[in-house]
């Protein structure tokens, strides 16, 4: 059985390829129109992962790279669900995150920002959603950091999020921002997104109900992947 086709991706909701104020996009954006291709198995299938691919600490960034104590920073829980556009949970799908440390420095050989590396913080985590599409990470809140675009640009605190879904054409990478951050409205990368509602959807809400008292504060971040068409009426059998 061929999996059901996906809803068309709304290209007016996503950022376009060419966004002049995010300068790196200028030379890295295709200028020809994308070729629209109806879904086949190449797009509707996708890789799957199992629990034996992962370890219990993989979603705990406070402990998964701890060498000599814990990382510096505000202890947070990031949790939520992976849903499709019909609001249905996407179970057993891989969610991967990466982020700067509390000082705004990435553990990457190409990051030269003067804030120090945290010896107890790797900055990445991964987990599978449960049967209800739910996921949770524990980490420290990333710091804002400067980047070369205009002379004086600062990224708002953010966590990068990568999600699979069940179809390769659902593959998505986005960024999660934090409620109340004044840098969100200033950021040329955020502002590649043309619709304010789409930006708001990437801002995680402070979730006091999910905090652990005297331990960690919590933010809730739901991620939505493309939906599958649930019904169709075939006019003629395949092959015509």
């Amino acid at each position, binding site marked *: 059985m061929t999996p059901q086709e996906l809803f068309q991706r709304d290209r007016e909701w996503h950022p376009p390829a060419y966004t002049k104020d995010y300068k790196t996009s200028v030379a890295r954006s295709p200028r020809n129109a994308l070729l629209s291709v109806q879904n086949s198995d190449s797009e509707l299938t996708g890789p799957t992962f199992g629990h034996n691919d992962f370890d219990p600490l993989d979603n705990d960034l406070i402990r998964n790279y701890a060498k000599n104590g814990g990382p510096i920073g505000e202890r947070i829980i990031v949790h939520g669900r992976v849903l499709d556009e019909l609001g249905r949970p996407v179970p057993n799908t891989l969610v991967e995150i990466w982020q700067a440390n509390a000082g705004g420095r990435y553990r990457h050989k190409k990051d030269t920002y003067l804030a120090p590396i945290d010896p107890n913080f790797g900055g990445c985590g991964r987990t599978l959603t449960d049967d209800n599409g739910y996921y949770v990470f524990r980490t420290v809140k990333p710091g804002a950091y400067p980047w070369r675009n205009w002379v004086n640009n600062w990224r708002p605190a953010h966590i990068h999020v990568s999600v699979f879904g069940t179809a390769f054409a659902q593959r998505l990478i986005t960024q999660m921002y934090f409620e109340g951050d004044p840098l969100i409205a200033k950021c040329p990368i955020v502002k590649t997104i043309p619709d304010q509602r789409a930006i708001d959807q990437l801002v995680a809400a402070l979730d006091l109900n999910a905090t652990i008292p005297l331990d960690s504060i919590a933010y809730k971040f739901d991620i*939505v992947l493309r939906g599958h068409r649930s019904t169709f009426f075939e006019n003629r059998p395949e*092959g015509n």
Partner: protein
Amino acid sequence: MVQGLNYLKESASQTAGPYVHIGLAPWAAGFDIYRKELGHDITGPNAKGERITVTGTVTDGTGAPVKDVLIEVWQANADGVYPGKGAVEDGFRGWGRIIPDFDTGVFSFETVKPGVVIGRNSRPMAPHLNLWLVARGINIGLNTRMYFGDEDAANAADPVLNLIEQAHRRETLIARADGNSYHFDICLQGDAETVFLDV
């Protein structure tokens, strides 16, 4: 007024940024954290079919290599079967992550040549790899396909290649064959711009 449709909207894409490797390939970022990193082995040890090597470079609109790109590959096995769709060899994932050399921008990976996959309306699709590119400056991941230069007849009948209006642009999706090695450059912009797909 009419009833609301009440669909959710897909979360908007944001660039993977320059440090995508931290999350998706920590060894490339320069550290070791997971017992088993994902994406290093597309085929597993039991895959049937012809073992091949694919090399190439992703270039930007100025002709410079995009050294921080990360490419994901998704492919069928040598019988043209995708994992999850039918039975495949034990350990065949069909998926991998490709990271170029940070100094040169040249990427290279090994896999098996996929078989013909049956497409829409039972039309066969020529053997191909599905590719998804993310990098700093790429606001939403770019989908494309790599076809094989030694499959002229199958390529000529391929339903996706035939959708490309300008015949010379079809060539941007076809890797140059040299025995069991293939060369495939991807050009993000410019005269040789690769055909990217809205899937």
